[in-house]
């Protein structure tokens, strides 16, 4: 079976005198090397310089908080079941009284782990999320010395209250349009008073 036409038959024929001198070949190599001195280098001096990345670049994940600082994730498991690499695991907890400012809903993720070595950064978790809780960002996953350090828990994934991460670029028009639909206020907390005001009979 032939896959490409780049096949070369190896021969053991003896080298000619010119070839055995090696000097012409060395000179040829030196010319190529020297020509590179005058060319633009293809590498850049990372981390002082960084390459431009696409606006929808898929890097390290973030677990978002809502405008009041409560965690949006409700541990529904959609991201984990959508994940083709099976990189996401979680356990759930029940919100107690007085924790409303910490967790948005009755149920929350007590632990939430992503194995960054398994993750293929496909973005399906973000697509599956019904609560707009998980997003991929333009940050890179840091290098580590130990494999266990690549398992990111909530400490690394949940955004800090004082250092919010902007994900507006990753909220597609389809998502924004979906949010505008009346009755599909999945993104707002249930507020009976507010709704009653809007509908006076």
């Amino acid at each position, binding site marked *: 079976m032939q896959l490409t036409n780049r096949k070369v038959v190896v021969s053991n024929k003896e080298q000619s005198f010119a070839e055995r001198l090696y000097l012409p070949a060395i000179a040829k190599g030196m010319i190529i090397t020297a020509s590179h001195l005058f060319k633009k280098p293809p590498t850049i001096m990372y981390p002082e310089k960084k390459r431009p990345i696409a606006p929808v670049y898929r890097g390290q994940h973030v677990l978002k908080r809502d405008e009041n600082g409560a965690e949006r994730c409700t541990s*529904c*498991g959609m991201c984990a079941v959508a994940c083709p690499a099976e990189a996401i695991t979680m356990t759930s907890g*029940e919100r107690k009284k007085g924790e409303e400012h910490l967790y948005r*809903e009755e149920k929350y993720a007590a632990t939430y782990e992503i194995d960054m070595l398994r993750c293929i950064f496909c973005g399906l978790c973000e697509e599956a999320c019904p609560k707009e809780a998980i997003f991929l960002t333009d940050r890179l996953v840091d290098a580590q010395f130990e494999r266990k350090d690549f398992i990111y828990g909530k400490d690394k994934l949940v955004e800090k209250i004082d250092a919010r991460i902007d994900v507006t670029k990753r909220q597609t028009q389809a998502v924004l349009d979906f949010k505008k639909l009346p009755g*599909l206020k999945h993104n707002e907390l249930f507020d009976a008073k507010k709704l009653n005001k809007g509908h006076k009979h």
Partner: protein
Amino acid sequence: MKVTIDGIEIDVPKGTTILQAARMIGAEVAPPTMCYYSSLKTSGGYCRTCIVKVTQGSTANPTPMPKPVASCRTEVMDGMVVENTINKDVLEARKGVVEFLLMNHPLDCPVCDQAGECHLQDLGYEHGAATTRYEFPRREFEKIDIGKYVQLHMTRCIMCFRCVKVAEQLTDNRVHGVMHRGDAAEISTYIENVIENDFSGNVIDVCPVGALTDKTFRFKSRVWFTKPVDATCDCKKCSGKVRLWMKGEEVLRVTARKDQWGEAEEFICNTCRFERKNTSDWKTEGPSPIHKSSVISQNHYENLNELKVKIMKQQKALGFTPFDKRP
């Protein structure tokens, strides 16, 4: 009696309902049900999901019935012709029924423990519209505690009355029921009575939505991360034939075995359901059959061999020689 459903003829004994006849033919023509439960007497007739069109009443009187009828409560006549999935009007009417059922149903599937095995989810997915037109606040109830085993979420209830029938027909002293009327109707125990009867746990299995769920399983895991295994035990109170929902070696939940219509094959007692949560309590029979369209079958690889055989058959039909069989 001869009856034709969606163009398929079947002979059924007198007194059979259209729904039972359709189920005899198979899942393709059987209408979906939310309140009917074959093992509970007088169940059905509330939800209207099983409506069908009768285009010919009988051989003796071939006039069609004027409106769609509830197939769970209508008995067949000789020569009756019924249309279910092939009639556009029926599907449109059913879509309306689903819209009514979802009107007051909260969209809290991400929090609900029933998600993944919820009949209303399946129904909405198959027959409902993707959006809602309802803009008013959904009904809300004061939370009541109905015991240490069963969790009640009244907002999710669709008023199917199945749990009331279970309490009436299976246990000897019913302490819960439906109170108030219309929009304000709710399942309650009156003055916070606690449900504790040996077979009261079965209300969880018959509930088509997440209104009655297992408190011992509350928020433990999503259904599709657990692995269903059929198991038995020597139980004095019930048959002991159950389905264990395992995660690793841990038994997270015990339920009755469900048949292809989502109905419990045999009701089980509370001891089996809530107390026996060790693998040593059970004799396992093997993995439970789960339909491949169910989310529960996600990330399960029991059927891998079956799949291999299927692929090999396809390859053989195409004249493809497997790599290991090549010269």
